[in-house]
């Protein structure tokens, strides 16, 4: 049983979207709700979508959703980071120094790192996330073996940089979001970093439906009778154009009257001008849940998800997903619980849509399998208990 306070280090904290940021926010809130004293250490930068080198907030102590938050000044020097970004855009090869600069001069705060040094390891468990930002590297590397890491790795260039290896070496404990993330890390760093990577905990992300009180279907919103739904940002990186192409092909082939409904922000121009597509844009939590509940299935062809909260929410709402077989994480979830379908091609996608329309009982069984999987493995209780259990274990020795 943990008798220590928990400190979560994250570059930003606020009410904005973003995977790692919402993970940090959710963890802090849920630890606090369970009676564990939790403090968030973050910067004064406003959000990932504003300047990373400018303080928006005053440094000091705040209360955010009942959690104590300490904000520290950001470092001001941005030019080495911007130089690296220019090189990346120009597709120039990066040197080891460039990789260091990417992390050192991205979002960072020397004041925050100094303050971490004042925390006694006997009284505090410190968690930093995500690996993609310099602040996490500074916090972990400044105190080898004292700060645990929630890396939120994706298969992207930064994952393979030397700085990432050093980060893993210096982390106290490593917490993965999925078995696939762990597998990828072991493949890349198992030999060089060793036990701590292999023995890292797959903690997952706590999923619970937010209780929504507003009107789920406002008068101005009219939903088609039969539809599939995509929930998330409309981005090329999420394979939204491919999804539109495959759905268009399905419509052409089957002459179906089914529609594909989009909820969430992003680039509207990615959707074809066609009656078969309906973009609802940003909707309230209540509407989001209602739109998903009434759909035949959720569809998501993104190949690069680190957890996929949205398919978990779909399962809790009784709706199975159709996902890309090229996305190891989503395919992994679907296979582990037998809670949906995964597809490699346009033909398979079309067959999967058709199958779920025609087989109500199987569709319901898939959703029910998924719901059980989420409840058992990704309730906040289950996820946070994995953190506590790991904190209670002796750590692997830190090299270096």
């Amino acid at each position: 049983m943990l008798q220590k306070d928990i400190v979560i280090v994250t570059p930003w904290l606020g009410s904005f979207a973003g995977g790692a940021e919402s993970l940090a926010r959710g963890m802090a809130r849920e630890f606090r709700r369970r009676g564990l004293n939790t403090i968030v250490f973050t910067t004064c930068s406003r959000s990932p979508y504003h300047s990373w080198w400018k303080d928006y907030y005053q440094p000091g102590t705040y209360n955010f959703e009942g959690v104590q938050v300490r904000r520290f000044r950001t470092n001001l020097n941005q030019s080495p980071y911007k130089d690296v970004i220019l090189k990346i855009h120009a597709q120039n090869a990066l040197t080891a120094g460039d990789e260091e600069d990417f992390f050192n001069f991205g979002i960072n705060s020397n004041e925050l790192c100094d303050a971490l040094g004042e925390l006694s390891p006997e009284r505090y468990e410190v968690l930093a996330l995500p690996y993609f930002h310099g602040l996490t590297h500074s916090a972990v590397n400044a105190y080898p073996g004292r700060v645990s890491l929630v890396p939120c790795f994706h298969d992207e260039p930064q994952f393979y940089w030397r700085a990432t290896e050093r980060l893993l070496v210096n982390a106290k404990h490593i917490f993965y979001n999925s078995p696939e993330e762990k597998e990828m890390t072991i493949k890349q760093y198992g030999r060089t970093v060793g036990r701590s990577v292999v023995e890292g905990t797959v903690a997952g992300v706590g999923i619970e439906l937010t209780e929504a009180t507003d009107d789920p279907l406002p008068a101005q919103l009219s939903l088609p009778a039969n539809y599939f739904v995509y929930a998330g940002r409309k981005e090329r990186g999420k394979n939204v154009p491919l999804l539109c192409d495959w759905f268009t092909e399905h419509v052409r082939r089957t002459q179906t009257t089914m529609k594909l409904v989009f909820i969430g922000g992003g680039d509207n121009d990615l959707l074809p001008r066609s009656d078969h597509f309906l973009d609802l844009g940003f909707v309230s939590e209540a509407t989001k849940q209602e739109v998903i509940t009434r759909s035949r299935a959720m569809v998501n062809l993104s190949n690069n998800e680190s957890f996929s909260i949205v398919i978990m929410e779909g399962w809790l709402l009784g709706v199975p997903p159709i996902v890309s077989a090229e996305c190891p994480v989503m395919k992994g979830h679907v296979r582990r619980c037998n809670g949906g379908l995964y597809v490699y091609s346009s033909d398979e996608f079309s067959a999967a849509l058709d199958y779920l329309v025609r087989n109500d009982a199987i569709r319901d069984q898939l959703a029910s399998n998924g719901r059980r999987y989420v409840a058992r493995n990704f309730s906040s209780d289950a996820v946070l208990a994995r953190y506590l259990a790991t904190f209670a274990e002796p750590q692997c020795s830190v090299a270096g």
Partner: protein
Amino acid sequence: MKILIDGQTLNTPELNRGIGTYVKNTVENMLAFDFVNDFYIDVDSANGLDHFSPWAQQKLSVIPQPKGRSSSAVEYSEFTNDAIKKAGIDLYWSPNALMTNVFLPTPEATDCHFVATIFDVIPAVMKKQYQKAWPAKVFEEYQNKLELLERDYDLLIHISERTKSDFIRTVRASQKRHVVTPLAAAPAFRPYPFPEIPGGRDYILYPGGFDPRKNMDRAVEAFAEMHKRYADDKSIGAIRLLIICQTHSSEAREMMNRAKTLGLADKLELCGFVSDLDLITLYQKARCLFFPSLYEGFGLPVLEGLACGIPVAASNTSSIPEVAGNLATYFDPLDVVDMASSLYQTLKAPVDLESRMLRHEYSKRFSWQSTAVLTLQTFADCAQGLMESNASWAVTNE
């Protein structure tokens, strides 16, 4: 030594009850720690072994029963004695001797030692009620089994001191050849790991049953009495009674009508049967456990409640005090007012992390590993003729 385990329980509904838990865990732990003996099991289909781990399956040699399950005690006896002779079995163990849906073989004159586990002797202790409730033939078979055990079995294993003493008293058995090996809570039964529960603890958990022995009517009356007597205490106003047990719709309807009459319509919930995983969550988040049973062979829910760290209000009867020691608030299960007052006291017991861990630590005195090791030891002693007195598992109730 060659040990033959009677696998009949694997194909009975008891597999999901305390008896099944005992059979699965004791056998599993025996096979995990024993590298000396050879283990055989008689099952009427290979599927029976699915309930064991791959390791256990590998170590168990199956003696298949011909043509499915035996249809009579005589047929099962013939089959068993034949199997014992053919395989050269040294010790036969019936881990569930007295349930009416399993047969108990009559030992023939062989070198094999016969051992049986006794869960309780409730029908013998409550003879009048059971004589009335059971068909005469079933009751007669039960009595015959008791006599057979007393007369022809070499070793009797009881799951509590109380069961042992009740057996000796009711069957007038000589005090030799008796051993007590208690049940245990599985390691998954542990306290909620966080200091607080979001939303708080607002229900009393009652693992009940519509068997009159479980005392359901008085339990509900006592719960109503508690709300009435302590109505001024705002901290208990919202407390509900959550009953977990198999129910038929007519029984459930009747119970809910009764709750309505007692003014508990919104305070009583019948959950039906729940999976082990859900059961653990229900234990962990309960304000306390209420266990007003009139008689138990052991009282596993009491130990599971303590393993999950919650306060326990329980009957002062049969084996229950032996299991819960000083960690429960006891009451007379025939006295509704006493039950209500104990329940109220229990609701006031601390549920902070430290208190929960203390209860959990106590529960660790009972473990399946220890039960299996002691069982194996008594098997060995029995085979070597060393059983002289009443060996027993010493649980110190400090």
